[in-house]
């Protein structure tokens, strides 16, 4: 949980905000193992212990009848915190067993020693799992966006046509990732460049946990390579801006809590002369303007106005939801002293360097020497996992600091 142990990981010190560093060398004395684990996860364990104490006292406050409204609220809370209690009990049990095992490691009976050594390994694993997975997961509230798919917007940035060529490569990368993850990906809109490549695109990706997996892809992606179109073999640097939005499905009624219909201006794009029976040219483009926020969405890729409108509303809903999430992050940041990851999307987050066959994510200082595998979508998951882990750690740290 608190460590990224990878052969190619190297961290930039300023970004490495770990409070404790694990002394994970195998040479330490067995007796110190537990001590080290407890020391490293001191804050976590203190928080859990406090929650458990609170739970006990809540339990003792229940009246005998257990039927007052206050009781019912308490019972509900007790029920909710039961998994934490169980995990804590497991931790205590493993801890006790561990201490017993330590003594047996030096037993005179060789078969007993062998047994104890085995036990020692199992218990160490168990204890580590408690503090790195089980307990943190129970403390951090579950993601509210876990069920959401994503809308991924890609826009070419600096670098002209090379940027558009790379955008096409990125789109392919995400499509392949989606296939491999059994997500459903569909390009909603795409503007091709005459000279090849894609100027901008929006892709819809449906599936469980898609938004949570992809949300850290938002930001500026930089590519350094010799463009296919470059005759002199000079390396170019260009960028693609990515924004990942939570995919908001159409709600049944018109009672959206993100906006109301009268806040949205719907416009058709082109003049149609007399229209109606006089014209049979397909002109289905629509533009929405959300007046309070000034967000505009244009959609023309579908063959009917109805479809374009539906798509445009989906994008609008997703953008508004995204704003809401960003606002909540900002508020959390404002109310707590701890840093939460910046929501700045103009930040350069990743570099794809073809000459060096490497991809570096600048936020976590992760470098993978396997650019081809990543562009094929196969190894991108590794980057996403690292980012998600990093986020989980931040949330955890945030929680510990504010607890």
């Amino acid at each position: 949980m608190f460590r990224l142990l990878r052969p190619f990981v190297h961290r930039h010190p300023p970004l490495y905000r770990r409070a404790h560093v694990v002394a994970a060398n195998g040479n330490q004395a067995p007796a110190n193992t537990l001590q080290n684990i407890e020391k490293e996860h001191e804050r976590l364990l203190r928080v859990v212990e406090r929650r458990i104490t609170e739970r006990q006292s809540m339990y003792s406050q229940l009246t005998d009848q257990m039927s007052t409204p206050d009781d019912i609220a308490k019972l509900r809370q007790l029920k909710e915190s039961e998994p934490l209690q169980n995990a804590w009990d497991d931790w205590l049990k493993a801890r006790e067993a561990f201490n017993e095992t330590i003594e047996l490691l030096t037993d005179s009976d060789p078969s007993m020693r062998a047994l104890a050594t085995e036990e020692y390994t199992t218990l160490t694993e168990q204890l580590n799992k408690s503090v790195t997975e089980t307990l943190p997961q129970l403390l951090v509230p579950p993601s509210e966006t876990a069920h959401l798919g994503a809308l991924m917007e890609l826009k070419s940035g600096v670098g002209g046509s090379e940027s558009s060529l790379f955008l096409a490569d990125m789109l392919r990368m995400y499509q392949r990732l989606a296939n491999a993850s059994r997500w459903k990906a569909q390009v909603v809109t795409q503007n091709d460049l005459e000279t090849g490549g894609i100027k901008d695109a929006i892709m819809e990706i449906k599936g469980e946990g898609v938004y949570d997996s992809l949300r850290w892809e938002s930001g500026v992606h930089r590519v350094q390579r010799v463009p296919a179109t470059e005759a002199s073999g000079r390396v170019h640097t260009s960028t693609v801006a990515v924004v990942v939005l939570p995919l908001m499905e159409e709600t049944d009624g018109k009672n959206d809590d993100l906006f109301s219909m009268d806040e949205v201006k719907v416009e058709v794009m082109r003049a149609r002369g007399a229209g109606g029976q006089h014209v049979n040219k397909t002109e289905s483009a629509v533009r929405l303007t959300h007046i309070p926020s000034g967000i505009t969405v244009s959609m023309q890729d579908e063959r009917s106005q109805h479809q374009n409108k539906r798509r445009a509303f989906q994008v609008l809903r997703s953008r508004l939801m995204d704003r809401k999430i960003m606002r909540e992050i900002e508020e959390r940041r404002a109310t707590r002293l701890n840093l939460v990851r910046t929501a700045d999307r103009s930040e350069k987050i990743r570099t794809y360097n073809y000459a060096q066959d490497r991809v570096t994510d600048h936020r976590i200082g992760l470098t993978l020497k396997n650019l081809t595998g990543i562009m094929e979508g196969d190894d991108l998951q590794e980057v996403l996992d690292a980012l998600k882990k990093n986020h989980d750690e931040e949330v955890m740290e945030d929680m510990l600091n504010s607890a």
Partner: protein
Amino acid sequence: MQHRLFAKLAAQLGRQQASLEWKWMNDAIASDTSKNSLQDIVRRRCLGEPLQYILGTQPFGPLNLLVRPPVLIPRPETEHWVIKLSEAIRPTAQSPFSLLDIGTGSGCIPLLLCHLWPQGSVHTHGVDISPHAIRLANDNALLAGIPPPSDGDYLKRRNTFGTTPANFLAPTFPEEAMQIKPPFHIITSNPPYIPWKEFLELPRSVSEYEDPKALFGGPSGLEFYEAIARFVGRKDMMTSDGVVALEVGRGQAKAVEELIRTTGRVHHTEIWTDPWGIERTVIGRM
């Protein structure tokens, strides 16, 4: 090859429209809905044939309808007002409505309403003079999963769509309409409304491919509205709370409103504008 094809299309349609249609053509080929090659599609399109006929479909609201020459291609203006009508009137299965669509063409109006309204809340009927239209409308009903009317108990709980070939302008029509079991709660129509003068100025993709019988509304363009007004004016054709919804051509709304008011049966009228700001639909309530 591809570049040359696209360039050809762009020369014909302009680059922006060509890129969109290019995508739709490729989508149709990829999804197997079009049996033609891209080369054939582009060639036909460059000759002026409407894209909808070449691809064989046109989305209409949430429905994907079949289109076949020479039956009128459903227009976005029609899609817009029909969706609006589906929200303005809400029939229920407790007291189902009966709807007559005059000049049904592809069946787009009644089929979309059947799709949007609750099951069992409406029984629709389309009449058209063209056998091509009747066939297409029935094919579309099948595709949209909307059954023909039947006396079966089960079907009464579903929305239905039936067709009758008939010449609406013939003096015998009211007689024939009696077979469809009036009174109707709703009469909808997108009748031919293009006047003679404008007919001559239509783009080729309309005048050379779509059925003139679905477009030409007589010298004034109002011939069908006059007939509809006479039809509505008869007693027994509409319920006392009936609604008439008529699509009209640019500049015709006031005249049509006047026509249906003179029936004496319609007491309240309104005019809906289309997304392009043109007065497009006349709504009359009894």
